[in-house]
């Protein structure tokens, strides 16, 4: 029965990469990146998760259908998060600013 046996090297390589990335994400959290703070943190997490999925979980050897399912799962997750977020994000758009104030959000001036 066919199956792919990955080399120990690739596993250990991913392991080291994951540890380095963990260290990086903690280090980066000490930098003042403003709005990009969360973006960078999520980006690193996404790279780590992809490494785990691609190598440890063997997605790189998997059938097309499996990959399609993985992608579909992620799309559905983002549908839920983004559309819900869209509601909260746009609630403030409808706030009618008073003539004497430049409001950038609900009751908040930037």
């Amino acid at each position, binding site marked *: 029965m066919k199956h792919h046996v990955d080399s120990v090297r690739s596993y250990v390589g991913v392991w080291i990469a994951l540890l380095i990335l963990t260290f990086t994400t903690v280090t980066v959290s000490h930098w003042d990146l403003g709005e990009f703070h969360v973006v960078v943190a999520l980006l690193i997490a996404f790279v780590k998760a992809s490494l785990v999925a691609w190598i440890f979980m063997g997605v790189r050897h998997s059938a097309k*259908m499996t990959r399609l399912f993985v992608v*579909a*799962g992620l799309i*559905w997750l983002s*549908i*839920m998060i983004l*559309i*819900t977020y*869209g*509601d*909260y*994000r*746009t*609630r403030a*758009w*409808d706030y009618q600013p008073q003539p004497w104030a430049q409001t950038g959000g609900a009751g908040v001036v930037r």
Partner: protein
Amino acid sequence: MATIAQEKPETAEQVNYLNVSHTWKSWLFTTDHKRIAVLYLISITLMFVVGGAAAVAFRMNLLVPEGLFSAETYNRLFSMHGIIMVFFFLVPSIPATLANFLIPIMVGAKDLAFPRINLLSWYVYVFGGLFTLYAVIRGGVDTGWTFYAPYSSTYSNSYVLAAAFGVFFAGFSSILTGLNFIVTIHKMRAPGMTWSRLPLFVWANYATSLIQILGTPVLAITLLLLAFERIAHVGIFDPNIGGDPILFQHLFWFYSHPAVYIMILPGMGVISEIVACFSRKRVFGYNFVAFSSMAIAVLSFVVWGHHMFVTGESMYSSLAFSLLSFLVAVPSAIKVFNWTATMYKGSVSFETPMLYAFGFIGLFTIGGLTGLFLASLATDVELHGTYFVVAHFHYVMVGGMVMAFMGGLHFWWPKITGRMYSEAWSKFSALLVFVGFNLTFFPQFILGYLGMPRRYHAYPPEFQVLNVLSTAGASVLGVGYLIPMIYFLYSLKYGEKAGNNPWGATGLEWQIQSPPVTFNFEETPTVTEEAYNYGPVEEVVG
């Protein structure tokens, strides 16, 4: 349809999945999808009786404007009706019974991919059902089936936790069923059973299963968060600490709007089978009907906000959700048009399943079209929270799904039990159901237009006449549902032997013995034709 050589002389002692063993254990620990389907059928029928009894009771209450019962009793009755009917009857109705029985046979497999998980799903369902029944016995729950926070998390004095955990478990049972179907349809198809040869019933259930596995977990976590909030007296939906009750509605409807398609798609699948069989004709536009099931499954996930047009959801979100809600109406319309077109130049006969199919198409059309009122923003503001909404979703859920369930049950009953039921009684009860249903729910459209709010145990007197009509209809409907229970049970012992293919239908399930043997096929069949091959194509339209 398929090359199966297993016609055997019919003898009285034919072995089948029902008589292969008779012990309790052989039923309670069975992994045969057909036996599990029967177990499910018994359980959901019991739940239907409980939910239906609650409905009859609260319809009685509404005979007089002041209400016959206390507000507390009424509120618990309608909540239990909603919770039981939605989570313990409608969601598992066709998938866990008919589809459980038929999908492996229709794709030419010996069983579902994971037979033990299938059994587990039934036990989880029963466990959830017991939780919910416990809540009923202890005094019920009064939140409505929607469990809106903060009423359910903080203010309700009823058995919210027990009911919520019941629903939580029912959800897991639903996930397991969906998972099993997806894997079965992907991996267990017989040689030659390509995707474009799958019966539309299988397509519809595949789409349903996608919704089940993608949506249900969100309901599960939402109810858990609600339960934690109720236990800890603080939580993320609690406005006292800045929580937003509308977020609960977002998460709830992310599941529960697609869930209404869990409750209708399998019914659409059943209707495709019945209409084709009793018109002796291939389904018009097979690809479009199959594709529309998938389109519904996908689009159903991006329209949930139309339940929240009047909650303070962002206007821009509302606009988008409204547009998308109209979009999801298109694939539903495609189906209705195609069923109608299937009858064109067919050879139509009027056995009981076909009567239910007629009922389905008519009532679903009305249910679907009245959905347009609720997708359009301004009219939703007018009608939200009134009896119009109640009438609309009962036209879809009861006029649609329950009709389809009854139609499917009558269609495949000879296959499931090997016996025929009384044709006269079944036609009579189909008629009763149709008349009773319309009498119950049509007046509710008018009530809603007049502005009568739902979930009121007492109402202003000018609404009384319509309410009395509705209650009268409910009584007729109740009788219409009781009669089949009697003649079905009667047929088990005294019904005529059905034979393998009483309707002259195509499809693998009609080519095997009735009732089937334990592993369905003695040899895996090889499929060489598309579904609904009632004859070669003779005419091409446009």
